[in-house]
């Protein structure tokens, strides 16, 4: 019984740590595909990045981070500043990138 409880506990911890977070940033100056391309390229180089979504319509840059990793707000702001853009807000959410993609497509 003790072994079973231990296995359940390990399983729950593993499931929780596998749920990587999503960082959603509101960015000013996002008006063209080249802007989006540069930002996507910048964040894909970050070892903590699992996926990147850029939406010009929503002024959104979303980054899914790999499990057990995060990118600090200071690092995010610096990366976007170095790419030539201004961050207006940073939010950590439970939305997956796929869910955000679907939501953006549905609003078109």
């Amino acid at each position: 019984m003790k072994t079973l409880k231990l296995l359940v506990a390990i399983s729950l911890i593993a499931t929780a740590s596998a749920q990587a977070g999503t960082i959603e940033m509101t960015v000013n100056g996002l008006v063209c595909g080249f802007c989006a391309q540069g930002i996507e390229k910048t964040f894909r180089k970050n070892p903590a990045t699992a996926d990147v979504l850029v939406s010009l319509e929503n002024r959104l840059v979303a980054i899914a981070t790999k499990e057990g990793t995060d990118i600090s707000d200071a690092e995010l702001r610096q990366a976007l500043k170095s790419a030539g853009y201004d961050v207006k807000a940073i939010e950590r959410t439970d939305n997956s990138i796929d869910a955000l993609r679907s939501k953006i497509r549905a609003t078109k």
Partner: protein
Amino acid sequence: MNIFPGRIVPSMALVAGSLLASANAKPIAFAEGTTVMAEYGAGTMTEIQAFYAPTFRYSVGGGHLSLNSDVDESTRDITYARLNYLPKRWNLESAQANVFVWGSIGRAHLGETGDNQFAWNAGGQLDYETRRIYGSLRTDFHEASAYNHRIDTLQLGVAPYEHDYETLAVWFVLQARDYTGGLFDGTEWAALIRLFKHNAWLEAGVTQEGKLQAMLMFNF
């Protein structure tokens, strides 16, 4: 006057070929990005350029500009190394505006005399865009001991719909270009359509004389 000067066609084909094989034009696209551009300006000017931007503030590279006078038989072939700099960018909520400046040095070959001369160039561009309207004003001054030319270009564009990163961007652009130094009499007008998606850009149209005006750009 030849619409496609023989010495430029191979260069354009090479650039177009490499672009189609890999996939993307402004002097600085994004940090750590490479930009390759080719422009055919109605037979009067043809230019190819390649730049690498270590940061979003500047890029370095080179190009080749061919100027063929519409007024007389004079031609200039200018090969140059260039530095582009972005001194100011405004990131607005749904718009962006930029000021670019550049300078280059190189060698000019004069077709009418066969002379080769040191040549230099300085220019600048002011642009403003949203996802619906676009405007840019560019000036480019070229000088060698035998000539000086200024090429001023105004572009105004409107998009029929607001594109996103994953969709094709379509723009209708009206261009006015003025040449000084005996290259072209009056103002050359062109109606263009611009298409771009991800890292590839194509702009093409015709001038009031029915000549081709086109530009290809790739960023990677």
